[in-house]
């Protein structure tokens, strides 16, 4: 299973194994990473699963599509590294991914 490291707002690291096919958001919820709230359950409607992709991983993760890009406008402190984790599917190529949780409430 790919390993994903979530870094919360306090800098605490959560190294988690997340099954392929789940979203990066679901991996955070399953592992109780603080700050990923996901109130719309991954429907790309709420922006409360916002995180910053570690610079080293930008290329592999890729860019947001139109709906996500629009929804990201609702997020607090949007930056170039911003993504909605519910829209990123875990695949073998993301093994080692590092994401930094944003301020979601």
């Amino acid at each position: 299973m790919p390993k994903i490291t979530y870094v919360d707002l306090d800098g605490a690291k959560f190294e988690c194994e997340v099954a392929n096919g789940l979203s990066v958001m679901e991996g955070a919820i399953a592992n109780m990473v603080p700050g990923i709230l996901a109130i719309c359950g991954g429907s790309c409607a709420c922006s409360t699963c916002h995180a910053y992709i570690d610079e080293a991983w930008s290329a592999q993760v890729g860019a947001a599509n139109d709906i996500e890009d629009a929804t990201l406008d609702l997020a607090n402190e949007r930056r170039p590294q911003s993504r909605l984790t519910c829209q990123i599917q875990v695949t073998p190529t993301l093994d080692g991914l590092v994401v930094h949780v944003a301020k979601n409430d």
Partner: protein
Amino acid sequence: MSSIAIIGAGQAGMQLADSLRRGGFEGSVILYGDEGSLPYQRPPLSKQFLLGDLEASRLNFRPIAHYEKLAVTLRLDCAVTQVDLQTRTLAMANGEQAAFDRLAFTTGARVRKLALPGAEDPRVCYLRGITDAQAIRERLATARRVVIIGGGFIGLEVAAVARTLGKEVTVLEAQTRLMPRVVAPVVSAYFEAVHNQRGVRFLLGESLTALAPTSSALGLTTASATYLEADLVVVGIGVHPNLELAAAAGLPCEGGIVVNEFACTRDPTVVAAGDCTWQRNILFERPHRLESVQNAVDQAKVAAASLLEKPVAYSQVPWFWSDQYDVKLQMVGISTGFEAAIVRGNPETGAFSVFYYLGERVLAVDSINRPAEHMAARRLLASGGLLAKELAADPAADLKTIIEKN
């Protein structure tokens, strides 16, 4: 230390428990549910889950460990049958009793049923919970002809799934257009066309008058004497709020449990949130009931704040979405009472928005495949809703910039 009982382990109940702990509450929190499952998401039940694209395990909002970490006691197979606000005790279906200091109703809603002879046939299905969705999924596997009663969100989402699975689909709607209570005629017409193109048949202005189950099919007769046969009937004709428990406890109820903008019932130590509430909210002229994820979450947060005696008024603008095939409908605000519906963009292109005006103010905006306009509209409504109609109607006007400047 005090104790808080939350009746109803759905979206609002789980959020309330979460918000109480986030707000620093250290007393006991007990979440009572009657579905036997961890709190789970309903929206996918008429979408990806019904289509077979999502396993049931992925519907839960949180793993069980989350509740353990929060020290929230789960009683998930434990219907509450009675509440006594004088003695501060509640009774459960299994005969147990429990004391509480403060109380929350997050009891949600249940489906309205068809009142026709023959409607008890197991091939007549409703959709509210996971077991309903599983039953429909199983029947869809073998059904050829599917009839949907009710052209609202749930009916249309189920129609989209059934059609995608290759079923013969007919939708009966008593009004003459789809989603009549919530969207403008232009939006109804657009969705009618979308479903028509995919082969869904509509009987509009038609209601079901008789149901004749035989071993091979369900025979349906409509008010205009049209006869059709179905292997599966899915009924989506609205819900009843679960208010009886609160009403029996002496709390005022109308189209739901009456709450103010602090999510408080008449008893300030008793709150209610989500689909079960009838809101008298300062933001809106008329009292109303909202059935949405947004409302369940935001109202539960308000309810938690009231229980923690740090009241904040509910001021969130309502939003909602519906997915049908690859069409995304996103809505913000409440359009009830609108005078003018201004269309932005061309419905024929499959991407447009409708701005609902009362006077000079935008009450609500529906966006079809226009996520950026939806998000701009959320900002607009949160900041009062003033936007010149010419700008609303002009697809070239950059809404985001205009709204940010306001």
